[in-house]
């Protein structure tokens, strides 16, 4: 959130019919984003009410005006004074704060994005029109692709990474291309692209970060051995339905946001609210889809991870750093007790990161404000581990057993959780030869222990 109290960020004026006759940015942009015109009737509902009250009362007023601009919530302090020459008012914008609507780093989609950033094998930067500006990679497999993208700067990224099963004229709206399967010339691996937009309040995306990811580990494809036969799948969500469902749901969310922000034209407030609810529900559905995909992966017969020698302290540092901002928003301190030496485990880095993000994210979500979350590393012979402890409400003995069950919410609702996070985390821990347990008592917080096999070769 940015606060510019004490300055006048923008001036504006209205006439006797409460029409906005002139406005500086960012107010002018918000008026347009809310479906209005300049000059034209005030399209920002709370500002319209404020101006009308000032004009009718003849008294100056200063108050916060709330509005929504695309995916951002705007809170602006506006000083409105009567007595403008044509019977209208003068407006001074004193501060302008923006924050993402439905911001929740713990959501499955946000968690996946953090992991994607860490695992991307190629990163590119795109302009607002999805044209390549530059690309970087450390992968020898992708070196030629990276060189081609840099040589062809100014070209649509889809020319280098053709989306699979998408034959529409490019570029599609970025929401529809996010998480799309793509072909990488000369590579037999399965690839997908994540698009992360850079957005200024009141504007379209000014650029994008493109992440190229593969679920197949690189080393498997450097060996001459034929690929293992695919294990039979337990169900269809992740493999077949998720890619098919993700695109139409993303389209529903994109269209609902267009309606909600009145980009398609003026709309009564009630209908804009309905559209907002549709967008929120769609986003929750996308999160649930991500969890269901993970669920299918961990429940598949023959599911394996790709263990490597990893330093648990390093993973814990990353997880604490990633969620640090969100913890600070609740004035929660993450107390990471770093060991003097690396704590080496035999496990898959991204799976351990996924588990720790889930544990720390849950702690932030359910612990009281201004409390502490402790992260400590343990090493005891045949096991190494990480303990995430919080000062939340704690769990009864019965709840400690139930909390790892599928879809178990312990009576909670409305917080965007699916009840799958801990179930998936425990399955991942077990797949790596470890375990995920909890120790707790009502009123005394909870301590989750992720135990893993040590790396005895180190």
């Amino acid at each position, binding site marked *: 959130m940015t606060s510019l109290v004490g300055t006048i960020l923008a001036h504006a004026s209205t006439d006797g019919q409460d029409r906005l006759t002139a406005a500086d940015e960012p107010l002018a942009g918000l008026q347009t984003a809310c479906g209005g015109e300049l000059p034209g009737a005030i399209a920002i509902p709370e500002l319209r009410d404020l101006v009308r009250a000032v004009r009718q009362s003849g008294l100056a007023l200063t108050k916060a005006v709330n509005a929504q601009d695309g995916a951002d919530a705007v809170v602006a302090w506006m000083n409105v004074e009567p007595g403008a020459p044509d019977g209208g008012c003068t407006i001074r914008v004193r501060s302008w704060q923006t924050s993402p609507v439905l911001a929740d780093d713990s959501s499955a989609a946000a968690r996946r994005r953090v992991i994607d950033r860490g695992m991307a094998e190629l990163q590119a930067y795109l302009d607002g029109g999805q044209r390549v*500006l530059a690309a970087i990679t450390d992968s020898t497999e992708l070196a030629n692709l990276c060189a081609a993208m840099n040589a062809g700067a100014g070209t649509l990224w889809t020319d280098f990474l053709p989306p699979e099963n998408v034959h529409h004229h490019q570029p599609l709206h970025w929401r529809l291309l996010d998480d799309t399967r793509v072909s990488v010339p000369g590579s037999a691996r399965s690839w997908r692209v994540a698009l992360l937009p850079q957005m200024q309040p009141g504007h379209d995306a000014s650029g994008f970060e493109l992440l190229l990811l593969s679920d197949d580990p690189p080393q498997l494809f450097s060996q001459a051995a034929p690929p293992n036969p695919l294990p039979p799948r337990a169900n269809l969500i992740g493999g077949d339905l998720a890619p098919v469902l993700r695109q139409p749901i993303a389209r529903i969310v994109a269209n609902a946001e267009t309606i909600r922000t009145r980009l398609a034209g003026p709309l009564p407030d009630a209908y804009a609210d309905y559209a907002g609810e549709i967008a929120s529900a769609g986003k929750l559905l996308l999160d649930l889809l991500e969890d269901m995909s993970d669920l299918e992966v961990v429940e598949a017969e023959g599911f394996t991870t790709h263990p490597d020698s990893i330093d648990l302290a390093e993973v814990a540092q990353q997880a604490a750093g990633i969620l640090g901002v969100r913890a600070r928003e609740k004035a929660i301190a993450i107390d990471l007790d770093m060991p003097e030496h690396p704590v080496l485990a035999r496990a898959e880095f991204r799976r351990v990161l996924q588990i720790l993000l889930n544990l720390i994210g849950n702690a932030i979500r359910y612990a009281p404000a201004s409390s502490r979350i402790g992260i400590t590393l343990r090493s005891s012979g045949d096991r190494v581990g990480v303990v995430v402890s919080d000062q939340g409400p704690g769990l009864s003995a019965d709840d400690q057993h139930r909390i790892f069950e599928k879809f178990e919410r312990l009576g909670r609702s409305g917080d965007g959780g699916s009840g799958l996070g801990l179930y998936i985390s425990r399955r991942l821990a077990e797949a790596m030869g470890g375990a995920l347990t909890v120790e707790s008592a009502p009123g005394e917080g909870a301590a989750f222990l992720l135990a893993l096999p040590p790396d005895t070769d180190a």
Partner: protein
Amino acid sequence: MIDTASHAANLNDAEAVLLDALANAERASGAARSFLAQAARSPASDDVSEETRVRTYAALASLAVAVLDGLVGAAGARHQPAEVDVVIRVLSECPALLEHLRADVIEWQLTQRLHDTLALDPVAPPLLQQLVAQPDHRAAATAFLTAQMYWCRAHARMNMTLGNLPYAVQNQVCGVIQALGASEPDLADRANIVCADVRSASDPAADRERCSAKVLELLGLDAPAALRVQEAGVALFLTALARRTMQSRTAVAGWTDEAQAARLAVSLRAAGTDPGDIRQQLLALHFDDALAEGLAQIAPQQASDMLADMT
């Protein structure tokens, strides 16, 4: 009629307030150096913010592993924790490296914060996007953008390599590696090879700080937009301020810490920034803008003199 006596008194008051603030900032800066040196050696220290401590230690640990990779084994080899610890301790005694890492961490934290609060693009802020669109500036702007992508990736993953260090700091670290290897003849040869490899693999033209300086030279060193962080982005803003005030970029990055607001304000004034614009910058960086009040009475040259007196 101008009351010259009153004006002089006000000027002295304003200067005294700023000098006092600068002295406080200097004390804080010295303390920061010492606690970071300690924090790097003792990860359990509570004297620094959690994020600064973790990121500084993680960067040192990454570099230590990279050094050991070169000295005793191929990349990816596992090293004894005690060996890693020894190299971390040795590296933490290199002032230039520690100063650089501290500044880097502060710059990254500011970059992230302004991304969250102002939606300021960490890689391609508005000024850079304008330059990329201009054929005459595209090559230099794209080179900086690429360097900035590598920098952001290293910090997002908390994984620093020797190649991430500026050219000058790399040289200092090479000196440390050679000193470390001097204990054994076999290691000495190996240390020389490692340093030669690092130097030959380094491309000064791809150095982020040099790339940012090149962009600013093309833009014109006195371009006002370069000193507006909302337009230039954190990286170009810091380089521009350092160049215009003849300070090191590492030092200027430290001035963005809230405790150093006085130095930042005086540096901006020394760079010729209008007091109104200074107020905007202080507010954008989430500081109290009270310091801007006295700056209207301080001429840019006077501000430069104040900075020089503090060094």
